[in-house]
Structure formats: structure tokens, C-alpha cells
């Protein structure tokens, strides 16, 4: 989230699109209620009429997977009706930047497309620059090749009729949503955009979210109180686990993971450190060398020296996309032979789960760490297989629950909060920290007698035992202090002298010469001294900040440097005056020559630096030069779709990779003749994700004991299905048997002159635990977004029929 949960109460308009906040983040809806009490309007846009829809003031349906058309039309509406925040757009976005004359767009394809490689050469999407390399701008926004004009031309095609014919939204409800939401374009009004997996789980997921962000930039809603683009994340620490980089393409703190082209630290830093000639650009990633060298010092300690490039060679360098779908494809092929798994349940939660279960059967060994025996840990006894045929050696290790250990987790609003141990874990269960520490020490022992390239293992800085503890119990405080970072020798930085071992006060003090270590620069400022009382994540200060907008700056700690609202320099004009003087995030005090309110995005005086400090050009990116699938969002149909794309001859996102084991394999996709129904998966309050925790909890299992599919009354009638009947749902990948929940909450659509039905599938279930049921992911496709590779769980095709025998 650019903003945070409490800040939702400050919005004038709330858009919930791509999320079902009331169902999946129930306590957050308190703050929506507070917003409404202040007079805010709440809008729900969703393929299903959800708990959020019933909570909202206005609801508009859309067909699953058509967000770009829906929001593209809102952008057109905002431009056409002059709802945009012009001063913000001109000064703070790249609207005025002029684009290369080579740029073209035709039939859904941007210039530079290579059909064979299914990818783009992006050189024609570049800014036009002067001789010094500085981008050319036209602040009147009139130049025909400036971003603003190109954007206007692009979205002019998304007129009301076209949008409604694609999305299935009723025209009057759609216009109402456009009118209400774009009212937040007034300088002193704010609209917040709440999204979740409804947006990301798509083959054009990154562009869905870009469309939201672009509208927010045009309306001046980023950086302001009650605004933002807010990803409502679904797991207690999925923000922290992302920050800590449990993903193939990054290192902690969103540093790029080295690839095979980085043959030295110098080459890596050259590739990954952006340069700007604009003195007004903070170009924050220009600090990459300090953060990377500090990371290498945290990982390899005294063995990381300037002479050996700080042990850069010891990091693995990838050559291909190693993300989740390719990982399982490699496992299916037998290339991945060993799997270590901490608290994840792919046999239920992965796309095309039947194929993932097959892949697990081809492993030589698996180590699973969990609270319960999951479907994944017990894959070898799943229905329909003979355990004797599966040769995988499986270790299932008992983990401590969150209340049986100590450490921090980071919520969706980036607050890192410390949790304490209340009780001992049961039996032989151990904290994951203990398991990781023990495994690392055991592996190290194996390498004492030699092995292949043992240096990174033997020289890994790994010293987390509690002081004086004979059992080597690892200390989470020691780890947290390393994540923050400390000085490795006596050093003077910015006129301040630090002793060896001092904690680094903030990332502004990190250096690129090895004098500092920091396991994650973003968390540098979280643990600023040697005592447990220096752990800022554990703070419980109850006072709000003087601007009184719910920042609660002394409650826990938030990255970066306790800044509660990101890009907050965009919440003021070039003189430092807040767009909304009544409720400000920050404001410039000209008498004291300092900022008041939240921690500003850099302390420079107003107007001195552009506000979007993580972008090399410092501006909000209405035009994106580096995405895989285009500088502007364009509507494509989901990979399985009930209609022909009305926008262009490009049916699907042209830059998506399609996974097939070998050339000539049959298509993993179903067609609309055999599978005419649009399916989407969803979650419920009473269960959680793959279900290992909640399907083993009697109260929750009793509340929602069975898996079901929600279908509309029209579809039920067509198939002679009554509420509570058992039905078979089938896709090109598999079939499941579930109960039918017949309701009027699932709309159907008139598309291409015919009725297209939808089905909603609850996906929490599997064959283990107290509450069992078929897994919806047996049906979902393993095709992912062009940028993120997140699978398209939210829009695919299925067929249904009544099961032969209904339950007694």
C-alpha cells in the first residue's frame, strides 16, 4: 500500500475494484465505515455481488478479466469531462515528456513486437532527448507526441458503448461510477483505490494495476491523505516476505538479483544503478552500490572484501525466468529434484494443481515445514495414486505457531510489528528460525569434508545463537539487528563518527566501501541500538501525529524510515502547500524552513526535487518505458475467453509466455464451445488460503464445512440444478465435484448477442484436514502475467453439469 489501513478513513471516494475487502480483510472495513461517516462514497466494482458490494453505496458489475477496459473508460471520462488535477499532472507526472517519433500502436500491438519471441524491443517507447540526454518536455501538454496526447488518443477508443460491450457493465451504473470516482480529481479531494488478487491474477495483471495508478495520477490521488493505490495483501507477512526477497528476481530490499550478464560487481552495479542528469531528480536507486555492498557484507562478513568484489561471485546468477510456474514445470521435467517448503501448500493453491501434484511425485526428496500435515506434504497419499509408485523421500517438520515464538511481521501498510512468545510450542515443534539455523549448521558440517564450490556456504556469516546458550537457540533480535545493519569498523559518515558494532541509524548512513552491513536497506532504521528497547518495531506509542490523520507514528515502525504515506511530496504544490489544507500529510513551514507532518520523501525544500523519487526521472509514470507488454495498458481478453476481442486483432496479451513441455503438445487451454462459462476463484472470511490452518480449526470448519461453486439462477435453470445439488465443474485441465450455491449474486452478461454465464469457485479446499473438498485449482490455467508471471486464476473457462447422485 502507498498509504495504510487507517488512512482509508480519510478518503472522499473509496473504489474497491479487484478486491473484496469486507470479506477478506474484515477489520479493515471499520475504516471504510469511518470514511462513510465522514461523508465518503464507497464504490464496488466486481464480477460478483460480494460482501463488499452489499456494504458499498454503488455497485457495478464487470466480466472477470476486463479491468483495463473498465478503467480505461474511466480515464477517457476523466479527460473528456476535465476532471483531472492539471497542476499535479503537469508538474508531477511524465505527461509532458515527448516520446520517440518511432512509436506506433496498431491492432493491439505496440511498435517493436517480435512475434516469434513473443516480446518487445522497447527502444521506440523511449523519451525523446536533447543533445545532453535530458528528456524533451512540453508543459503545455499540446505536443502531439507528448505522453498526455498519446494517452488521450489511446484511451479515446474506450468509449462508453465499447467499454460496456466488453465488460458487460450496465451503461447507467458505469457512468455513475465514472462520475462519482472522478469527483476526487478536485485538488482538495481524495480517492483511494483498493485492489487485491482480483487484479493481479491475470495475464495482464501488471497493466490492470497500472491502469488504476494512471487514473490515480491523473486525479492527483497519489501521495495524498486518503488516496493511493493500495494492494490489500492476503497473508500476515507477505509484505515482509516480499521485502526479504523470497522471489527469484530480487534480493532483499528490491535490489535486482544478479543474472549471468553480471560477471563482476562493477558490471552488476552499472546495469542496476540508474543515472539521471536532472539535478531535480533524487534518483534514489542511484544509491544501489551502498545497499548492495552492505548486503554482501551482511551475508559474507569479513570474507567480503574490496579485493574479492565483496564476494559478488558467490551469489547465484540466473539466466532464465525462475518464477513459480517455471519452477513447477522444471520439477515436472525432473530437473528440480529437491524441494524445501516453509508453510506453503501448492497442491491446493497452485495453478493447474493436478499438474503440480504430478510434479511433486517426481521429486527425489521434499522437506516440508508446517503446523499441520498439508495436502502437499501428504501428496503421495492423495486420491487416485498408489503410494508405492512414488519414490519421493519426505520430511515433515513440526513448526511453532506465531504465538510460540518471537519476531516481526509487516502488514499491508508496511508497518513492521513485533510479536512475542506466549507459550512453548507443542512436543518437538520448533520455530522456523530454529529450523533454518539448524539446517544451515547441519549443511555446513557436511561441507567440512569438501564439496562443490563450498565457499559461499562455509564463509556465510551465520552467527545467531543467543549469547551463552549451550543449545544454539537462535536469537531473532540478533537477526533483526543484522537486517537493520551495523558498522563493521570505526567510520565517519555525514560528519558523524560511529564505532565498530554500532547500529546504522538509517539507510542514509550506508556506505559502498564495506564499512557498513545491512541485510535489507529498507529496514535500516528499524533496530537502531544494541538493546531490545532500541527495537522500533516493538513500539506501542498511542499518540497520533500533530496533523491528526491517523498516522500513529510511534506505533511499531514502518518502512521506509517510518514514512507512513509514500510519495508524500506529491501531496503539496511546488511551494510546499498541501492540496488539502484541512488534512495534510506534510507541509512546509517557511519560518522554520522545515517540513511538518509525516516523514517527508526526502527533506529537501519544496520544489527542489521531483516527488516520485524512486523513478530516475522523478515523475509519476503515465507512460511506462520498461514493462514487458506496452507503455500504455491495452485491453486483451483473458487466455480463455468467451468472446473475440472487440478492441483489436490481438486476442490475448501478445507478450505472455505459454508453457508447454515440448513443441507440439496439445494446448492446455479450453475453447468457448466446449467450456462456455467464465469461471473465477475466490476466498471467504472463514477460511484462509490453502486451508491448512482453518480447515483444521473446528469452529471454522463448522462455519464453512464444504466446498461449493456459486452460480446464477439462470445458469442453474438451464442445467436443472437446485441450490445444494452436487455438480461437476470441468475445465480443459480437470474436473471437480462441489455443491452448487444458486444465487442472484452472480450476474450473467449479454456479449456478442448471447448470454454468457459466470461461476465463482471457493478455492480453500483439499483432501486433508477436518473439512475436506475438491480443490478449485484443479481447473485453473498455468499461464501467467507478462511482467510478474502471476497465474490467471481469476478468469478462465469451464462447463458445469449436475452430478449423477445428489447427496442425501
Amino acid at each position: 500500500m502507498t498509504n495504510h489501513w487507517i488512512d482509508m478513513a480519510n478518503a472522499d471516494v473509496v473504489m474497491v475494484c479487484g478486491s473484496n475487502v469486507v470479506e477478506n480483510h474484515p477489520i479493515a472495513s471499520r475504516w471504510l465505515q469511518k470514511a462513510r461517516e465522514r461523508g465518503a462514497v464507497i464504490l464496488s466494482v466486481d464480477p460478483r455481488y460480494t460482501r463488499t458490494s452489499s456494504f458499498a453505496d454503488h455497485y457495478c458489475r464487470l466480466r472477470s478479466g476486463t479491468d483495463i477496459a473498465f478503467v480505461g473508460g474511466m480515464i477517457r471520462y476523466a479527460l473528456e469531462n476535465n476532471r483531472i488535477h492539471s497542476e499535479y499532472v503537469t508538474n508531477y507526472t511524465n505527461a509532458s515528456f515527448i516520446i520517440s517519433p518511432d512509436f506506433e500502436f496498431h491492432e493491439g500491438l505496440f511498435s517493436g513486437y517480435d512475434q516469434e519471441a513473443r516480446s518487445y524491443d522497447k527502444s521506440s517507447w523511449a523519451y525523446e532527448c536533447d543533445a545532453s540526454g535530458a528528456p524533451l518536455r512540453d508543459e503545455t501538454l499540446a505536443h502531439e507526441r507528448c505522453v498526455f496526447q498519446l494517452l488521450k488518443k489511446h484511451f479515446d477508443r474506450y468509449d462508453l458503448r465499447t467499454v460496456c460491450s466488453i465488460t458487460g457493465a450496465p451503461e447507467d451504473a458505469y457512468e455513475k461510477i465514472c462520475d462519482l470516482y472522478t469527483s476526487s480529481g478536485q485538488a482538495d479531494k481524495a480517492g483511494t483505490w483498493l485492489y487485491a488478487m482480483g487484479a493481479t491474477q491475470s495475464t495482464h495483471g501488471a497493466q490492470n494495476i497500472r491502469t488504476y495508478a494512471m487514473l490515480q495520477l491523473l486525479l492527483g490521488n497519489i501521495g495524498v491523505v486518503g488516496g493511493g493505490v493500495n494492494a490489500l495483501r492476503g497473508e500476515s507477512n507477505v509484505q515482509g516476505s516480499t521485502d526479504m526477497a523470497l522471489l527469484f528476481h530480487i534480493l532483499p530490499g528490491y535490489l535486482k538479483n544478479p543474472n549471468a550478464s553480471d560477471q563482476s560487481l562493477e558490471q552488476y552495479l552499472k546495469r542496476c544503478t540508474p543515472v539521471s542528469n536532472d539535478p531535480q531528480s533524487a534518483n534514489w536507486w542511484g544509491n544501489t552500490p551502498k545497499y548492495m555492498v552492505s548486503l554482501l557484507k551482511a551475508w559474507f562478513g569479513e570474507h567480503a572484501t574490496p579485493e574479492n568484489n565483496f564476494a559478488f561471485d558467490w551469489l547465484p546468477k540466473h539466466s532464465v525466468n525462475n518464477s513459480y510456474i517455471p519452477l513447477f514445470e522444471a520439477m515436472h521435467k525432473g530437473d528440480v529434484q529437491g524441494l524445501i517448503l516453509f508453510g506453503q501448500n501448492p497442491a491446493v493453491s497452485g495453478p493447474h494443481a493436478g499438474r503440480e501434484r504430478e510434479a511433486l511425485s517426481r521429486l527425489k526428496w521434499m522437506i516440508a515445514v508446517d503446523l499441520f500435515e498439508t495436502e502437499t506434504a501428504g501428496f503421495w497419499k492423495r486420491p487416485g495414486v498408489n503410494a508405492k509408485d512414488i519414490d519421493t523421500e519426505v520430511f515433515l517438520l513440526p513448526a511453532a505457531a506465531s504465538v510460540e515464538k518471537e519476531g516481526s511481521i509487516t502488514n499491508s501498510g508496511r508497518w513492521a510489528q513485533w510479536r512475542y512468545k506466549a507459550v512453548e510450542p507443542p512436543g518437538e515443534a520448533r520455530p522456523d528460525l530454529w529450523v533454518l539455523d539448524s539446517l544451515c549448521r547441519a549443511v555446513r558440517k557436511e561441507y567440512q569434508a569438501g564439496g562443490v564450490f563450498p565457499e559461499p556456504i562455509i564463509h556465510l556469516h551465520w552467527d545467531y545463537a543467543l549469547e551463552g546458550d549451550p543449545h544454539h537457540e537462535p536469537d531473532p533480535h540478533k537477526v533483526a539487528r543484522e537486517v537493520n545493519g551495523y558498522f563493521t569498523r570505526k567510520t565517519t559518515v555525514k560528519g558523524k563518527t560511529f564505532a565498530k558494532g554500532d547500529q546504522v541509524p538509517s539507510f542514509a548512513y550506508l556506505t559502498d566501501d564495506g564499512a557498513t552491513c545491512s541485510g535489507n536497506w529498507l529496514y535500516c532504521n528499524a533496530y537502531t541500538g544494541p538493546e531490545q528497547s532500541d527495537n522500533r518495531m516493538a513500539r506501542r506509542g498511542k499518540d497520533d501525529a500533530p496533523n491528526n490523520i491517523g498516522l500513529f507514528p510511534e506505533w511499531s515502525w514502518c518502512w521506509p524510515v517510518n514514512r507512513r504515506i509514500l510519495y508524500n511530496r506529491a501531496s503539496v504544490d511546488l511551494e510546499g502547500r498541501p492540496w488539502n489544507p484541512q488534512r495534510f500529510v506534510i507541509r512546509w513551514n517557511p519560518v522554520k524552513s522545515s517540513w511538518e507532518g509525516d516523514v517527508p520523501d526526502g527533506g529537501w525544500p519544496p520544489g527542489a526535487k521531483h516527488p516520485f523519487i524512486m523513478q530516475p526521472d522523478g515523475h509519476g509514470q503515465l507512460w511506462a518505458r520498461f514493462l514487458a507488454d506496452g507503455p500504455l495498458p491495452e485491453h486483451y481478453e483473458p487466455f480463455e475467453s468467451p468472446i473475440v476481442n472487440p478492441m483489436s486483432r490481438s486476442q490475448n496479451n501478445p507478450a505472455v509466455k505459454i508453457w508447454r513441455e515440448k513443441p507440439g503438445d496439445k494446448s492446455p487451454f479450453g475453447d468457448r464451445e466446449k467450456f462456455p462459462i467464465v469461471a473465477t476463484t475466490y476466498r471467504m472470511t472463514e477460511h484462509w488460503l490453502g486451508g491448512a490452518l482453518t480447515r483444521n480449526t473446528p469452529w471454522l470448519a463448522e462455519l464453512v464445512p464444504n466446498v461449493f461453486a456459486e452460480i446464477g439462477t439462470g445458469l442453474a435453470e438451464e442445467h436443472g440444478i437446485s441450490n445444494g445439488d452436487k455438480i461437476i465443474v470441468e475445465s480443459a485441465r480437470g474436473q471437480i465435484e462441489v455443491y452448487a450455491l444458486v444465487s442472484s449474486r452472480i450476474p450473467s452478461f449479454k456479449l456478442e448477442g448471447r448470454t454468457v454465464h459466470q461461476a465463482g469457485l471457493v478455492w480453500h479446499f483439499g483432501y486433508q484436514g477436518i473439512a475436506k473438498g475438491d480443490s478449485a485449482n484443479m481447473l485453473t490455467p498455468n499461464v501467467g502475467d507478462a511482467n510478474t508471471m502471476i497465474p490467471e486464476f481469476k478468469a478462465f473457462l469451464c462447463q458445469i453439469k449436475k452430478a449423477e447422485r445428489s447427496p442425501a
Partner: protein
Amino acid sequence: MKISRRGFFKTAGAGAAAGVLSGKADKSLAALPAREDPFANAVSTTSVCPFCAVGCGTVVKALDGKVVQIEGDPEHPINQGALCSKGLAFSQTVNSPGRLQQVMYRAPGSDHWEEKSWEWALPRMAALIKKTRDASFVQEKDGRTVNRTEGLACLGGAALDNEECYLYAKLARALGVVYLEHQARI
């Protein structure tokens, strides 16, 4: 942190959950007759709910080393004492008889688990990690230094603490793992 005992919520269970949406957490229950606090001697510890990423504060009450109740933390600025049905049920998850309490091992081709000790399992797992890593380790590919293994994969972590995630990433990369992924990708 261990904190002093707080007033026992009369609004355990459905009352608090219903109050979330109505914004009237306690009123309907105010008329309930007073009763003795069954957890008067419980030790309270603050925590954060392990389910979604709202980050609601909780107070964990334990008697004789066993969790007896998990409530919303009334001082927490986000949830102000409220919890949803999952958060309120978490004490039952923690105390579930289905919790794993031993290291379990399934031999190749076997149809059942066997209980094992950590002492038995740790060196065996370490030897397998080393065997797979060393057999699949690639130091050079097409004339470039890559120092990686594509034979070993690591998954998971969104339910782990930050400190655990950090050590997981550090260990995986030190082993040369490039297939390092978790829930954020799906």
C-alpha cells in the same frame, strides 16, 4: 511484551465479529450479567494476528503454559480490540490436536509416516541437500560464471516472521538456489 491482565472481554466470539461492521461493539452486550473472569490468573502477551495482512493486534492469554484465549488488542490503533472470525478462532488452531508435534518421515515408496527425532533428521536432510546441490551445481555456463543450482528449489515464507524470511533468503542464495519463490507470486 507481557502486559498486565486486562479486563476480560465479554464480547468473545460472534459478538465482536458482528460489532466490526455495525461499529457498535459492546452496546448490545452491556446488559449481560457480570460473571467471574475464568482467566483471571492468565498471563497476557501481545501478538499480531497470523492471517491476513491488516496486522490486527491480539492479546494471547495463557494459563499453565497453554493458550486459553486470543482477543483483539484494545490498544491497537488499527483494530481497536476487534477481530474477525479467523482471528478469534486462532486459539483453537494453536491447540488443535491435529498439530504436528514430531518430525515425520516418509520413506520412498512407503504408504505411511514414521516418527523420527531431529537428531536423526537433520544430518540426513543436510546430506540430501548437499548431494542434490553438488550433483546439479553449475559454475560456468556458455563461458560465464553462474555459480548456481537448478536442481534445488525453495518455496514458502509469507507466514514466516521477517527474521525467518531473511535467513531463508540468505541460506537459499548461499546454496546457489535460483528457484526461490513463494506465495507473493501466486
